[in-house]
Structure formats: structure tokens, C-alpha cells
């Protein structure tokens, strides 16, 4: 390598490192705060003797609902991801491969786009009234269904993009072999879609896990998810910074786990839509 090029490469690495530090340091900051006594946080001490008192209180004290919140988040994210992935994959397949009439395809894709562009908050009030009228106000059902429909456009697009990588010829071959349409889908298409399903599923789970606005409006104490609980620590009359930091740290775990296990999948999912 010529010296000038080596300097350029060094500068690039420096830029990348700086950017990475800018991204990482705030996370380090809140994780550190979760191990500080409240007094160390509010005195702004950089050097502190670590404590697990906030985690202990969040997880094991009688007055804390955090484990309940955690289970709520997990359940809602899991069920809504399953529903959303099923409806999205089947829908994308029907739109792309099953000779769906053009007007219906345009109507569904156009509505997806329009709905996705509209701020969720515009529908939340209406959802609240409708669910409450059928006796499902502030229920898990309401939360699961709304999280499902919120992510449906994304599931439809992503699975559509992954589907386009599955050659039509394989389906035609299956048909020649007297394979019915359902069997073609389950035995030929679905196995080939596995990486796409994993990538999309991981993203949908994270979107639901992270969702705050709708969960805030449609839950009560027993059905509240982690972000709603976290906001409460930060909004209470006397702020609980330590508890807030500890709750934030714990709420990062699922995404971190997915990140470690499936970086490639996540990148594929996130970039799929933009590049196709």
C-alpha cells in the first residue's frame, strides 16, 4: 500500500471508531447508571461503588410489577409476531404468485402504504373506543391485535421482497408433479423462505417489544408492557432515576440477544426493503 493510501485508510478507521464510540457511550452511560446508588446519580459522580439495589428492587420486591411487565411484553410480542408473520407471508404470496386481480393488489398495497405513513396516534383513540365497546378495553387481545396490524405493512413488504428471490420455476415444476397449491406453498415455497421469515420475524418481534405510544394508551397496570412501565419511572412525581436506568438496561436484553444471534438476518431485513 502506498503511504497516502495508508493515511486515508487510517483516517477512515478513525472516523468509524469515533462514530462507533458516539453510538456506544450513551448506552454505557445508562448501564452504568443502573449500577449506581440514587445519590451517586443525582450528584453526577463518575466514580462510584457499584450496587445491584435497583435490579433487586425491580425484580424481587413485592411492590414491583416489572416481571409482570416483562412477561406482558414478551407474550404480546411473541403472539403478534406470529400473527403478523402469518398474515403478511400468506398475503404477500397471494399478491405475488396467485394471480390476484390487479385492482385488489393495488388496493391492498396502496392501503398498506397510506396506513403506514399515517401516525399511529391518529387511530389509537378510535381503537380505544372500539375495543372498550366490545369489552376488550385495555386487554391483551387489544394490544396483540393492534401491534399485529401496525406491523402488517412492513411484514407484507419484507416478505414480498424475500418472495421475489424464490424462483417461480420451482412452483411450476411442483405443479407439473401434480402438487396442489397448498402443498406447493408449504413444501416448496416456505422452506426456501426460511431465512426471510427469520429476518422478518426478528424485526417484527423487536418492533412490538419497543412499541410505546399504542401500549401506553391501550393498557392498564396489569397489562402494561416494559416501555410503559419504564416511562412511569421517569414521569412519577419523584423521579426514580436508578429504577429507570435498571429497567432500561433489562429491556435491552432481547434485542441484544437477537443482535448476537442474528446480526446477518437483521441487516438483511433492514436493508431488504430499501435495496429492492
Amino acid at each position, binding site marked *: 500500500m502506498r503511504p497516502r493510501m495508508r493515511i486515508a485508510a487510517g483516517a477512515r478507521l478513525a472516523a468509524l471508531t469515533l462514530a462507533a464510540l458516539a453510538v456506544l457511550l450513551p448506552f454505557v452511560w445508562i448501564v452504568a447508571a443502573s449500577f449506581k446508588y440514587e445519590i451517586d446519580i443525582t450528584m453526577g459522580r463518575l466514580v462510584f461503588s457499584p450496587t445491584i439495589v435497583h435490579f433487586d428492587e425491580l425484580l424481587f420486591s413485592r411492590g414491583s410489577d416489572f416481571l409482570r411487565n416483562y412477561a406482558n411484553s414478551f407474550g404480546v410480542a411473541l403472539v403478534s409476531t406470529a400473527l403478523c408473520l402469518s398474515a403478511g407471508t400468506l398475503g404477500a404470496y397471494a399478491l405475488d404468485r396467485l394471480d390476484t386481480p390487479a385492482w385488489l393488489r393495488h388496493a391492498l398495497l396502496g392501503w398498506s402504504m397510506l396506513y403506514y405513513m399515517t401516525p399511529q396516534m391518529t387511530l389509537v383513540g*378510535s381503537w380505544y373506543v372500539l375495543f372498550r365497546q366490545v369489552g376488550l378495553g385495555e386487554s391483551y387481545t387489544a394490544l396483540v391485535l393492534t401491534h399485529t396490524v401496525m406491523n402488517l405493512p412492513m411484514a407484507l413488504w419484507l416478505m414480498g421482497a424475500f418472495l421475489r428471490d424464490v424462483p417461480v420455476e420451482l412452483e411450476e415444476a411442483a405443479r407439473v408433479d401434480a402438487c396442489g*397449491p397448498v402443498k406447493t406453498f408449504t413444501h416448496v415455497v416456505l422452506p426456501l423462505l426460511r431465512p426471510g421469515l427469520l429476518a422478518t420475524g426478528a424485526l417484527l418481534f423487536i418492533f412490538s417489544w419497543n412499541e410505546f405510544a399504542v401500549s401506553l394508551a391501550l393498557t392498564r397496570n396489569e397489562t402494561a408492557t416494559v416501555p410503559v412501565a419504564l416511562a412511569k419511572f*421517569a414521569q412519577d412525581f419523584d423521579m426514580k432515576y436508578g429504577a429507570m436506568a435498571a429497567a432500561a438496561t433489562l429491556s435491552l436484553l432481547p434485542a441484544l440477544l437477537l443482535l448476537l444471534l442474528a446480526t446477518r438476518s437483521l441487516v438483511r431485513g433492514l436493508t431488504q426493503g430499501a435495496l429492492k
Partner: protein
Amino acid sequence: MARRWPSLRLWRAGSLAPLVLFYVLLTLLPVLNLAAMSVSDVSWAAGRSHWSFVGAEHLARVADDAVYRAGVRNTAWFAAVSVSIQMLLGFTLALLVSRTTRGSTLWRMVFLLPILMPGIVIGAIWKLMYDADFGVINQVLAWFGARARDWTGSPELAMASIIAVDVWHWTPFVFLLMLAGLQSLPPEVFEAARVDATPWWRELTRITLPLMLPTIVVTLVFRSIMAFKVFDEIYLLTSGGPGTATEVISFSIYRTFFVQGRAGYGAAVSLVTMMLIAMVVVLALNLQARLARRPA
């Protein structure tokens, strides 16, 4: 692609049914319900709602609502500024990195981190760091002799502080998309440019940018849509204040419905918001059509 399975129609209907059902019951019906609510006063008694017709009263009031107007203005400003900065930063960083370092897994994991984090956690992080009394930002400023500021509590700084959080949150996303786009460009074009000793700025404006245009447009549109929905960070950091300095559309609607309990008026505000969005979409599509017609 005519494949004549006898049972095709049934299978197609079955495959589309969940999607259509979700959309009809949870998006179309709520929009119609919203329209009905916007001309009514809705109150609750014993778990049942009572509606009384009030006509266009709510809708007429939206236009004069100073808070909502501030919200629309602030949301547009927030989206424009923060998305522009993200695009510029993300693209520059991707350009710097694309040649030498192949996006190794470790870098990717770092830059994926903020994208995957709950917005509310992002808010919590910055609430700690922005704090006027003990926040690390004021501490660092103090080391350099600068005076402490109330980052989220002062009318001049609050919006800029929110924008800074959003830039921090989403620049990595733009970066990853741009990097993926750059790395999928055909290398031959750039080799040819090198052989011709094309200066770097000409390579950028004549080759890279035109080739990257589709990725740039998609990322821009996607980020703008997300920016218009901003809520979580505002809720935690400023609640729209001080005054209306950081009031945004989603927060106005939330407050009207769930803090003030004005369902009828909230519905009217929601409907007006939807119409504004629809107008922006029509404008954008028009613009796109006009650009596409123009000879390159």
C-alpha cells in the same frame, strides 16, 4: 403466470383473508369510527359510550387550535432538519467506510444497536445525560469552563435537543442503508473512473450520487415517515414543552384523547392529520411523476 389449479381461487381467498380482515377491522373500521366520533361528543357511563351529535363544531375548531398548529409546524421542522442531518452524516460516513473496511460484523452490531432499541430507552438515556443539575453534558461543559444549560427545559434549546437525540438514534440506520447501497454498486464503473483519473468530486457527483439515487430516495422517504410519527422521546423528555416549543402532532392527539378525555375533538384532530398526510402524499407523487417525465 397462469397456473390452472382447480382449487386456486379457494386457496387465494384463504391466503388473503387474514390480511384483508386485519385491515378492514383494525384500520378501515376505526377510520370510519373516527369520522363518526369527530361529529359527536363521546362520554362513558358504566362501560358503555354515549354519543351526542354536535355537527362540524369540532372540525371547525381544529383550524384555530394554536397548540395543534404549533404541533404541525414543529413536526414539519423537526422532520426536515433531523432527516437532512441524518442523510448527510449517514451518507458521508458510508462513503468514507465503503472502500476500505468491508462491513465487518462487529461494526454492524454497533451501528445496529440504536436502531433496535426502544424509543423510550433512548429517551431515558438522554434524560439522564441532558439533566440540568447532574447530566454528564453539563459536567463536561463545566470542565471546559462553559456554563450549564437547561437542555430540555429552555424554549430556545428544547427542539434542538430533541433533534440531536433523533440524529443520534437514526443516523446509524441511514449509514447502514447507504453502506449496503454503495457496496451493491458495480465496481467496474469505479475502476473505469480511476483509470480515467477522474477527480473524487466528479466521481461523487457524476457517478456515485446518480447510481445511489434510488437508495437515497427510499431512505429519505422512509425516515421522513418515521420522523412525522415522533412521540416516545418527546413524551419522556419534554412532553411538548416548554410552552409549545416541542409540541408535535402525535403528542397533541395523545393529550386530547387520553389526558383531557376529549374523544370527539381528538377524533377531529386525527382526521385533519390524516388529510394533511394524504395531501403530502399526493404532492409527493405529483412531484415524482414530474421528475420522471423530465428527460435526464
